C-alpha cells in the first residue's frame, strides 16, 4: 500500500488529491511540524519535509515530483497527457512553473523570516516576494481566461497543484481568489469529489 506522509493544508495536499483522483489504496500519515517525526518518515524524507511518498521500492519527496510519479503510476486516472502527446510538454511546463515560480516565492511570503537574515527587514522581504507572486497570479489569471483547465481540455495533476497553492495566497493584499477567472476555475474544481473529500479532511478554507 502507498504511504503519504503529510501535513493537512500543506504541500502534501496536491499529492493527496491525485491519490483520491486515482482511487488509490493509500494511508495518509499526518506529520506534526515539530521535528523529527516518526522514524519511517525520517527515513523517507532527507530534508524532513512533507510530502514524502513510499510506494513499494520507490520513495519520493518534493510535491511536484510526487505528483509526477503518481500521474504515471495511475495512467487510467489521466492525471497527465500521455508521453507522446504535445500537451505533455505543457504539463511539464506548468508543473515546473508552479513549483519554481509560484510555490517558491510563496514560501517567502508565508515565512519571510526564513529568508531574511536581518529581522528588521522581514516585512520588506515579504513585500518584494508578494510583488513577485502577484505577477505570477496575474499571469495565471490571463491564461485561465476562456479555459476550463491549465492544460488542454481536461483536469490534470497540474490543476491539483495550482489548486493547492491558491489558498496559500489568502493573506496577501490581492489573493488569488480575487481574480475572476481564477476564482471560477477554483470553485469549479471544488465540485470534484476528490477535492471535496480532501477539503473536508484537511479543513481547507
Amino acid at each position, binding site marked *: 500500500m502507498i504511504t503519504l506522509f503529510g501535513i493537512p493544508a500543506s504541500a502534501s495536499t496536491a499529492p493527496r488529491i491525485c491519490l483520491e483522483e486515482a482511487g488509490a489504496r493509500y494511508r495518509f500519515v499526518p506529520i506534526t511540524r515539530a521535528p523529527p517525526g516518526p522514524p519511517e518518515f525520517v527515513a523517507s524524507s532527507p530534508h524532513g519535509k512533507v510530502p514524502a511518498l513510499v510506494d513499494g521500492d520507490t520513495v519520493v519527496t*518534493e510535491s511536484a*515530483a510526487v505528483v509526477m510519479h503518481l500521474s504515471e503510476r495511475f495512467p487510467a486516472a489521466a492525471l497527465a497527457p500521455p508521453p507522446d502527446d504535445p500537451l505533455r510538454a505543457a504539463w511539464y511546463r506548468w508543473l515546473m512553473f508552479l513549483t*519554481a515560480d509560484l510555490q517558491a516565492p510563496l514560501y517567502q511570503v508565508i515565512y519571510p523570516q526564513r529568508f531574511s537574515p536581518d529581522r528588521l527587514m522581514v516585512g520588506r522581504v515579504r513585500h518584494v516576494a508578494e510583488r513577485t507572486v502577484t505577477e505570477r497570479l496575474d499571469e495565471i489569471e490571463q491564461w485561465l481566461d476562456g479555459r476550463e483547465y491549465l492544460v488542454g481540455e481536461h483536469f490534470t495533476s497540474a490543476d491539483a497543484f495550482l489548486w493547492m497553492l491558491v489558498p496559500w495566497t489568502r493573506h496577501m493584499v490581492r489573493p488569488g481568489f480575487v481574480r475572476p477567472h481564477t476564482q471560477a476555475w477554483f470553485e469549479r474544481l471544488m465540485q470534484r469529489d476528490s477535492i471535496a473529500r480532501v477539503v473536508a479532511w484537511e479543513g481547507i478554507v
Partner: protein
Amino acid sequence: MRLQCSPARPATAVRAALIEAGAPYELVRTDDPGPAAGARSQRLPALVDGDARVDGDAAIILWLGDRYPDSPLTPAPATPQRADCFRWVAYLANTVQTIGARRGTVVGVEPDIAATIRVGAASDLAGALEFIERELAHRDHLVAGRFTGADLLLYQLVAIELADLVPSVAAHPNLSAHRTRIEARPSVVGARAEWATSS
C-alpha cells in the same frame, strides 16, 4: 526543433540534453521569445517541437526525456530511479535555481533590502550545496547508479548560473568531482563549443 535562448544565458543544460538525445535542433538567440499559445508569454529557454511548446530548463529536460526514451535523460517509467530523477529536477528548479531568481527581484528595490535578499540567497545556496554534497558522498551522479538530465541541470546551476555565489569549490569535494565529471561529457563539451562559436 527550434530552441530559443537568451544571448545572456546559454541554457547549457538544455543544449547538452538535446545533444544527449541526438535531437537535431536550430539554435536561435533572442531576448524576445514571443507569445506562447494563448496569452501567456514564454520564458527562455523555449523549445518548439512540432506542436509541442515548452519553456524553462527543467521542463524542457523532462520533455526531452519522454520524447527520446532511449536517451539517458530520464530513467524508464515505473522505476524508483525515475521518481528520484523527478525529485532532483524539482528540487533543483524550486530551491537552487530560484535562488538566482530571488537575486533578480532586487531590481528596482532599495539598496538595503537588495543587500538583505542577496545575503539570504547566498546563505540558502550554501545550505543547499551542503545537502547536495552529502547526497553525492557515495555516488557519482544525483540518481544512484546512472547519469540523468538532473546532473546537467546541477552542472549549469553550480558552474555557470550561480557560480559567483558558490563558495569555494574546494569546500565541496564531491560536488567539485561531479562538476568535473559532467563537464567532461561530450554533450557538455559540445554545448559549450557551440555557444562559443555561434556568438
